[in-house]
């Protein structure tokens, strides 16, 4: 997944939710940007799980503690409450079983931080409504036939899933097209319409 400016903002939002010296598992750690950011600025004890072997090897070569693995299959090997925070950044939509993965995140971490592209954003809706085609946007740059993303959801869908799993939303942030946080006082429907990405802090 290419890292563009909006996603970097997303990483910063995630990082700001994590206190210094926490134990963090980053699921879908990609090129290790978040882990490196957390290690350098927060002295966290960070571990990563990443699907692509190339990504893993690069991370390890950079001194990060990362293993190759699949969020859908390998989370079961981690102990209950083994980490202060488990982060799933821009990966939920690429998992085969998002509900199970989210459930595992809440089991492994005292807190879970999940960020995802909002499929309810107005551009997405407009694209589907006007063009009648699967949307391709800055945050969702793939064509429907060639995408790792198989389970899109909207902010509203995600909140419903959290309810179903008995997860408490401690904090939620929606980011607009410029990566700016949308005001906290806005109602859910507003976030669901104008948020391009969402970041949730959850616990159970």
């Amino acid at each position, binding site marked *: 997944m290419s890292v563009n400016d909006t996603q970097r903002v997303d990483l910063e939002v995630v990082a700001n939710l994590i206190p210094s010296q926490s134990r963090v598992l980053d699921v879908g750690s990609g090129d290790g940007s978040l882990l490196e950011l957390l290690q350098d600025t927060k002295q966290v004890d960070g571990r990563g799980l990443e699907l692509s072997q190339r990504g893993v*090897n690069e991370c*390890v070569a950079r*001194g990060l*503690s990362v293993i190759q693995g699949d969020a859908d299959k390998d989370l079961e090997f981690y102990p209950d409450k083994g980490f202060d925070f488990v982060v799933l950044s821009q990966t939920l939509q690429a998992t085969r079983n998002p509900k199970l993965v989210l459930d595992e995140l809440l089991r492994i971490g005292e807190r879970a931080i999940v960020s995802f592209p909002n499929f309810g954003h107005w551009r997405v809706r407009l694209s589907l409504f006007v063009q009648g085609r699967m949307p391709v946007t800055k945050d969702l740059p793939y064509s429907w036939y060639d995408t790792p993303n198989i389970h899109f959801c909207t902010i509203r869908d995600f909140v419903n899933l959290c309810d179903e799993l008995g997860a408490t939303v401690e904090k939620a942030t929606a980011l607009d097209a410029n990566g700016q946080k949308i005001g906290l006082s806005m109602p859910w429907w507003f976030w669901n319409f104008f948020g391009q990405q969402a970041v949730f802090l959850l616990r159970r």
Partner: protein
Amino acid sequence: MAVLRAGKTNNEADQPSSPVLRFGPDKPLKLDAGSVLSPFQIAYQTYGTLNDARSNAILVCHALTGDQHVANTNPVTGKPGWWEVLIGPGKIIDTNRFFIICSNVIGGCLGSTGPASTNPATGKPYGLDLPIITIPDMVRAQLMLVDHFGIEKLFCVLGGSMGGMQVLEWASSYPERVFSALPIATGARHSSQNIAFHEVGRQAVMADPEWHGGKYFDYGKRPEKGLAVARMAAHITYLSEAALHRKFGRNLQDRDALTFGFDADFQIESYLRHQGMTFVDRFDANSYLYMTRAMDYFDLAADHGGRLADAFAGTKTRFCLVSFTSDWLFPTEESRSIVHALNAAGASVSFVEIETDRGHDAFLLDEPELFAAINGFIGSAARARGLGA
């Protein structure tokens, strides 16, 4: 080469060319087999300087037929150390920065007590009178060596294959003595297939009429043919089909046509014969039996009630595991099951699988991705240990 051939005895076994630490009757080595080894000795090499805090020591564990000469010219073969691509001044494992220790394992034949060593009770080589040695026994002896240097905590223990088993044993049995662990191309147990290959090798040695029930030194003989066959069979398992095909294919050796006989028509045949022949020049047949047995017996999970994660419960050691895609002796799944166990134990673990067609032996070769992983892991562990850049 001359050492073993000359008098048909192994001078390196008793009087190695490397430093040797001797333990008298007051310091016996407890063995898993139930007895003790006493007196006994460990031959070793060191490189670099131990810092004042004694915090920069790296223990390198050798593989089945390796030895302590990891980064210096081997006195028996005259060849470079077996990991000189990795270890040396300014190299990935920098001897200007770290203090490297490599010992010949107990049961070996290059100066640590093994079947070729003189049994003080008889004045003759132990032969099969030496009790069976296990991986934990080897590590227990290494611990005594490490204690001798006054090293409280090793900065890193690393090794491949049988050396990787020792790394796992170190991390499991002495977690407080190991800051970081780097097991490469190894497993937490020897698989049934691996035991099978080892049995073929042992049977080849024991079927050689010159083996004489393990007492060949008494006859001034050595079971060279059997040991060479054992090595040939084992050597195939260290490579991969793809690498063999790339290197040899069905190419003929020094001829244009098949001879319709049993000469080494194919290059692969003469290659294996050469591997077998050079091996008997540097290795003791009984030692091969003991070393292969030690690997066969290794089963870290079984030592912990069948649950591998329990072998690492509460560990603070930082781990990095490495496997190779074409290694069929210790396939990636073996490493992955260790990684899962370490995850379950909440350990800090990295895991790199390197894409190569060079098979198990890739850990001894110049593999840039392997070096990058080791470099990244050691560097980050050194920062965490306060060893500076």
